[in-house]
C-alpha cells in the first residue's frame, strides 16, 4: 500500500508541474506569438512607454521563457523579489505573482475567494450525492416503474439544462416574483450562519440539480449492471434477504464508479464554479477568474488556473487512494 501511495503522490506532483508549465507557457507564449506585449497585458493599454519598460524589467519579461518559469516556481515554493533597480517588491511564498490591474499580490486575493467557492461546492455536493444516488438506486430497483420514469425524465431534462439558465430562472421565480429568498449575496459562515445558509440555498440547489441528474443516470446504469452480475444471483440463491443483497453486495460495487466521478467533479468545482458564481454574483474563485479575464489580468488567471489544477489533481489523488482501499486489485496495476 505504501508503494502505491508513493507512486500516486509522485504522479500527482508531475501532473501539477506539467499543468503549471503548460499554463505558464500558453499565457506567456501566445501573447508573444500574436504580437501583443505581456507587459501591456499586465498594466493595461493606456500606459506610457517608460512605465511599460519598468514593468518589463521588474517582471523579467526579457528573460527566456524557461528562466521566467523557474522564477515563477521558485516564487511558489520560496517567495521571490521583483526588482527594477531600487524598486523592490517582495512577494512571500506561496507567491503567485503580482496583479497590476488591482495592484495587489495574487495569493491573498485568491485566499479570500476560497471560502466562497468552498461553501458553494461542498453544500451542493452533499445535496447532489443524496439526491442523485438515492434516485439512481430507487430507479434501478424499481425499473420501469413510475418513479423510475419520472426520475429519469427529470434527470434527462437536468443534464440538458444549462446552469446559467436554471440559475436565472430560479432567481427570477424565488427571489423576484415570490420573494421567498433574499437577493443572493455571500455572508461568511462565521459572521452569520443563518444568513450564510439562506443566501446559498438557491445556488446550491441550482448547481446540485445539474449534477444530481448526471449522478442519478450514472448510478442507475451502474446498479443495473451490478444487479445482473452472477454474484448477486448467487447471493439471492443463498437465501439472503433482499436488504442484504442490495445493501451489502450490490451497492458496494455499484457505487464504486461514482467515487471516481465524484472526486473529479468536486475537484473541478473547487477550482471555481465559474458559471454558478457568475449567475448568483458569488465572489469566489471562478468569479475572480472571470473578472481577471475581462481586465486582462494574467497573474490572477494563472493563479486561479493553478489552484483549480491543484484541487483537481488533489481530488484525483484522494480518489486513487480511496480506490486502492476499496478495491485492492487496483494497487497492483
Amino acid at each position, binding site marked *: 500500500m505504501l508503494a502505491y501511495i508513493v507512486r500516486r503522490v509522485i504522479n500527482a506532483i508531475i501532473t501539477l508541474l506539467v499543468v503549471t508549465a503548460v499554463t505558464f507557457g500558453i499565457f506567456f507564449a501566445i501573447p508573444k506569438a500574436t504580437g501583443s506585449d505581456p507587459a501591456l497585458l499586465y498594466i493595461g493599454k493606456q500606459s506610457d512607454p517608460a512605465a511599460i519598460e519598468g514593468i518589463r524589467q521588474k517582471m523579467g519579461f526579457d528573460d527566456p521563457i524557461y528562466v521566467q518559469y523557474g522564477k515563477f516556481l521558485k516564487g511558489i515554493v520560496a517567495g521571490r523579489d521583483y526588482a527594477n533597480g531600487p524598486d523592490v517588491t517582495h512577494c512571500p511564498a506561496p507567491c503567485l505573482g503580482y496583479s497590476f490591474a488591482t495592484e495587489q499580490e495574487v495569493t491573498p486575493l485568491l485566499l479570500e475567494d476560497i471560502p466562497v467557492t468552498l461553501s458553494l461546492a461542498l453544500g451542493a455536493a452533499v445535496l447532489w450525492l443524496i439526491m442523485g444516488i438515492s434516485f439512481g438506486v430507487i430507479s434501478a430497483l424499481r425499473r420501469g416503474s413510475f418513479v423510475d420514469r419520472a426520475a429519469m425524465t427529470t434527470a434527462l431534462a437536468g443534464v440538458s439544462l444549462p446552469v*446559467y439558465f436554471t440559475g436565472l430562472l430560479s432567481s427570477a421565480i424565488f427571489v423576484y416574483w415570490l420573494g421567498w429568498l433574499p437577493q443572493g449575496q455571500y455572508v461568511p459562515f462565521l459572521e452569520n450562519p443563518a444568513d450564510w445558509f439562506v443566501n446559498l440555498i438557491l445556488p446550491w440547489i441550482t448547481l446540485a440539480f445539474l449534477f444530481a441528474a448526471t449522478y442519478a443516470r450514472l448510478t442507475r446504469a451502474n446498479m443495473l449492471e451490478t444487479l445482473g452480475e452472477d454474484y448477486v444471483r448467487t447471493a439471492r440463491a443463498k437465501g439472503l434477504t433482499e436488504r442484504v443483497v442490495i445493501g451489502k453486495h450490490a451497492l458496494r460495487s455499484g457505487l464504486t464508479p461514482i467515487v471516481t466521478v465524484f472526486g473529479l467533479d468536486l475537484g473541478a468545482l473547487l477550482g471555481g464554479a465559474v458559471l454558478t458564481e457568475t*449567475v448568483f454574483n458569488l465572489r469566489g474563485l471562478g468569479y475572480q477568474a472571470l473578472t481577471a479575464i475581462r481586465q486582462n489580468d494574467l497573474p490572477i488567471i494563472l493563479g486561479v*488556473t493553478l489552484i483549480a489544477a491543484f484541487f483537481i489533481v488533489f481530488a484525483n489523488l484522494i480518489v486513487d487512494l480511496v480506490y486502492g482501499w476499496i478495491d485492492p486489485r487496483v494497487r497492483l496495476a
Partner: protein
Amino acid sequence: MSLGPEASVTDEMTPPTADAADRPGEKAIAGRSLKQIAWRRLKKDKVAIAGACVVIFLIVVAILAPLLIRWLGHPIDEYHQEKLDLETGTGLPKGALGGISWDFLLGVEPQSGRDIFSRIVFGAQTTLTVAFLSAFVSTILGTVFGLAAGFLGGWVDSVISRIMDFLLAFPQLLFAIALLSVLPDEFAGLGTRWSRVVVLVGVIGFFGWPYIGRIVRGQTLSLREREFVEASRSMGARSGRILFRELLPNLAAPILVYTTLIIPTNILTEAALSFLGVGIPPPNPSWGGMLSDAVQFYQVDPMYMIVPGAVIFITVLAFNLFGDGLRDALDPKAR
C-alpha cells in the same frame, strides 16, 4: 459493448439517422447486419425518433437561416425602436410577452429593438457549426490516438494514456476561458464571427478528444485479443489491414454513439463561453450571448431570458434523446 465479429462485415456502417428512411433497401446487406438490427430497434424508440426529428429540423433551420430571416424575420442588426416603450423611458418591448407578435415571432430585444427570432435562427447556425465541427475534431483525434494506444500498447499506450489523464485532470472551462481571452478575435480575414468559430472549434474539440480516446482505447484493447483478429493475423494480414478492416468497423458503433453524445455537451460549452463573454463576440448573435444580455432584464422582461434558454434546452435535450436512443439501439446491454 458486445458486438459480434459479424459486425465487421458491415464495412459501410453509416449512421442510422432518419434520412436512411427515405431510401430503404439501399446498401442493405443480406443477413442481419448490425446496421439493420440497430435501425429496427431505433425505429421502435419513439422518443429517440422525436429527438432525431427535432435535430433535423434544427439543422434545416441553421442551413436556411438567411432565407428564414428574410421571410419570417427582420435583419439581425435592424433596430426597431418603434416596437419599444420609449415614452416611459424603460425601453422595454411594447405588448405582452416581450413583444411577441406575427411580425416578431419571438419578441423584440429590450433597449435595442432587434428581432429575437432572427437572432435565434442566426445563432443556431453558429452554435450548430461549432458543436458539429468540434465533435468532429474530438472524434478524429480520439479515434486516432485511442486506436494507436490500444493497438500498439507499450510506451505509445503509456504516453497517450498519460496525456489523456492529464487533459481530463485540467480545469477545462477555466482554461478555455483564459485561452480564448488571449487568442486573437480576428485573423486570416475571416471576420469576427468565423474567426471565433474556428478558435472555438479548436479549443472545444481539443478538450473533448480524451473522452472518445479512452473509450476507443478500451474497446481496442479488448477487440485486439478476439479470435477474428487472431484469425486475420494468422492468415498473414498486416497491421494496417487489421486496424482498418477488422478493428475500425467494430469500433464504429461506440464512436458514433459518443460523437452523438458529445454534440449536446459542445452546444452547452459554446453557449457557456458566449454567456461568459469569450465566445461569439457581439454584435454577432449567439444563444449564450443573448442569455447574458438578458441578465439585466430578467425581472422586467422575462421572455427575453426564457426564449434563448428554452431554445438551448430543447436543442440539447433533442440531441441527448437521440444519442441515448442510438446507444440503446446499438448496444442492447446498456438498456
